[in-house]
């Protein structure tokens, strides 16, 4: 009985850690840009698949596409009439370094197939940059629109990214090796090292995000934008830049969870959506704005999933998604809608 309990606990916590990265991505993006990002799960897929292809030594097509997109926007930025000569050179230098970074990591990963951390780097660089591209292409032009419009836009983005994943990588699942093979046995309970890596890296990433938003100027600017967009703009915070940054962080975090999860379930173009939705259920507990409550939410979702799969496997997803209703009722009770800023 105790074995069962510890097995289920470990399982629930591992899944919770994955959903946790997703929930944080959703919150970062929602608070700064007011986008309820349905496409969030697709960054999981893209992260896992570009990681798999980088590992196998083929040049990641996504990196090439992203670099081309960045170059297009760089041209537009440099051509901006309001910029002085020195500002232009600065913009050009920053953008070139960025594009070079994305391409260099992808190239390095394809030159040294099988080098794990290079592949991680290439995948994260490509996916995080794709986040900023998505923001500039789809959110910036309608940044003043109502949350519903932004939600529908994100549904469109989901469809495009989903299709792109099939086009680039095909429909066959790819198996991905774990960071370290094997695992430890605690008595009868077997824990794969990959599960420990997932939990460890998730905690590190969350800690990193906390330190970033509390200790750095950029992080505080991000927080300020999240609290009050107009106010932040009046204080001289470049709100657009904050939006790009939030999308980069969100996409990067989701990609990280994808490439950590891939060794356990294979990387395939269809893996993202259910993970994204479960991250959403967890984030809903914190109203997609509160980080600590969302973290309680992810553990709740992970453990509920694990235990309900053990008890009544036919209904486990039903139970997890049904949790949204009591969560919303509870949110409504403790924090009536008037208190929200919409």
């Amino acid at each position, binding site marked *: 009985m105790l074995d069962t309990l510890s097995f289920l606990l470990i399982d629930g916590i*591992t899944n919770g850690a994955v959903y946790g990265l997703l929930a944080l991505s959703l919150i970062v993006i929602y608070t700064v840009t007011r986008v309820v990002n349905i496409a969030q799960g697709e960054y999981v897929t893209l992260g896992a698949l570009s990681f798999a292809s980088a590992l196998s030594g083929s040049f990641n097509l996504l990196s090439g596409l992203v670099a081309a997109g960045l170059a297009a926007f760089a041209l537009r930025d440099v051509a901006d009439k309001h910029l002085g000569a020195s500002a232009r050179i600065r913009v050009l230098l920053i953008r070139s370094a960025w594009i070079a970074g994305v391409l260099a990591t992808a190239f390095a990963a394809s030159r040294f197939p099988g080098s794990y951390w290079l592949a991680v780097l290439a995948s994260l660089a490509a996916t995080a940059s794709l986040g900023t591209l998505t923001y500039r292409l789809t959110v910036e032009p309608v940044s003043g629109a109502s949350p519903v419009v932004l939600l529908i836009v994100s549904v469109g983005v989901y469809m495009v990214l989903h299709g792109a994943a099939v086009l680039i990588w095909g429909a066959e699942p790819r198996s991905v090796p774990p960071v370290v093979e094997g695992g430890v046995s605690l008595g009868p309970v077997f824990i794969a090292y990959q599960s420990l890596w997932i939990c460890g890296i998730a905690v590190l990433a969350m800690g990193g995000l906390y330190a970033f938003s509390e200790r750095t100027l950029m992080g505080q600017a991000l927080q300020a934008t999240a609290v009050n967009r107009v106010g932040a703009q009046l204080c001289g915070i470049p709100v657009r830049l904050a939006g790009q940054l939030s999308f980069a962080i969100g996409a990067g975090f989701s990609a990280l969870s994808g490439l950590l999860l891939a060794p356990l379930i294979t990387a395939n173009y269809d893996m993202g959506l259910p993970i994204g939705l479960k991250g959403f259920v967890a984030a809903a507990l914190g109203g997609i704005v509160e980080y600590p409550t969302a973290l309680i939410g992810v553990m709740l979702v992970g453990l509920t999933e694990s*235990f309900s*799969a053990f008890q009544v496997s036919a209904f486990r997803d039903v139970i997890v998604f049904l949790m949204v209703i009591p969560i919303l009722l509870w949110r409504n009770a403790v924090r009536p809608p008037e208190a929200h800023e919409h």
Partner: protein
Amino acid sequence: MSKTVTRARIAASLCAFISAAAVGLVGPQAASAQEKPELRIAAIVSVTGAASALGAPERNAVALFDKIWSARTDLPFRVKVISYDDGSDPTKAVSLTRKAIEEDKAHVVVCCTTTPSSMAILDTVKAAKITMISMASNAAIVEPAADRPFTFKTPTSDKLMLQRTLNYMKRHGINKIGFFGLEDAYGEGGLKELQTVAKETGIDFASAERFARQDTNFTPQALRLKQAGLDAIYIHAIPPSADLAHEALKRVGYTGPIYHGAGSSINAFVDIGKANVEGAIIGVGALNVYDQIAKDNPLGPVLAKFAELYDGTYGKGKVDLFAGQSWDAMLLAVNAYQNMSEGAAMRDDLAGTRVAIKDAMEKTREWPGVNGVFNITSSDHLGLDKRSTFLSQIKGGRFVLIEE
């Protein structure tokens, strides 16, 4: 004067030459297009979506069929293949079937890869009175034949496969089994058959656990099965979830034998599972073990020919059971069209030809396909018997035939 005559002659001969060339080039083609009737087969395959691992080889076989048969000029008719991808989505399968019936004026619909999609288009094909040949495994697709007069299928049924698997279990002293399978129509169909066959065989069916194709976690269910004290576990799923379920059982410390249904009888199962699925016992079709079956098996020559064609195009050792599903479906359609009574008279009568093809399908006798020997009648729309099932074990990353 003479100049004018010469010019006129040149002009006349030029005219004659051009018209002769026109007749020579265009004439016979136009004539043959009118003379030879066209057999239009619409193949709707799940190239993308959750069942893409099965759909990809099926699409390959359709393309191979198209390449060979569209180019043939020795036939009294021409073959036209129309290819669609339903994305493993039943709704899309229905609309594509409608499109094939209405716009493409197909004579036969080869659809679909999955059981849910196949079930979804049943009413559409029945209403249009057009022959449908499914590539999905569930017996409910063609049963009862009285209700589904236009529906046929190529994969052997779960029932035949389970009868062989459970008889084998029984002989090896297994008395208590559990089910671990998908929670969709494919998995539920397998579960229902398993319960029936287990009762017939005298094996105790103890517990059932389910998962979804996109699940990220299989441990809790595996744990529960392990604790049920079973002699063997039967997994009814398709890769990659079949692999993940198998790995989860091993991870929680289950050491008994693990059996798989025909959904796992595909090369992707070994490619994804690698060493983790070593020792799995899988119900397979003849194609998985075509180089190992007895020499006197009637399927031998058919299998060898298809394997040679397929491997020749897509790479050595690539041929698998699912490529055979669409291949058999296409060839059964052609066979029925050839055997159709008063075939030539039906040329312009689309509805009549469709019904005639269905009638000819029901007269298929001892027809060797890669799935087995087909004997289709008006009451049995599958037409396969136990000659279509084999058991194999994964050894060294290969399907190795179990001699019984």
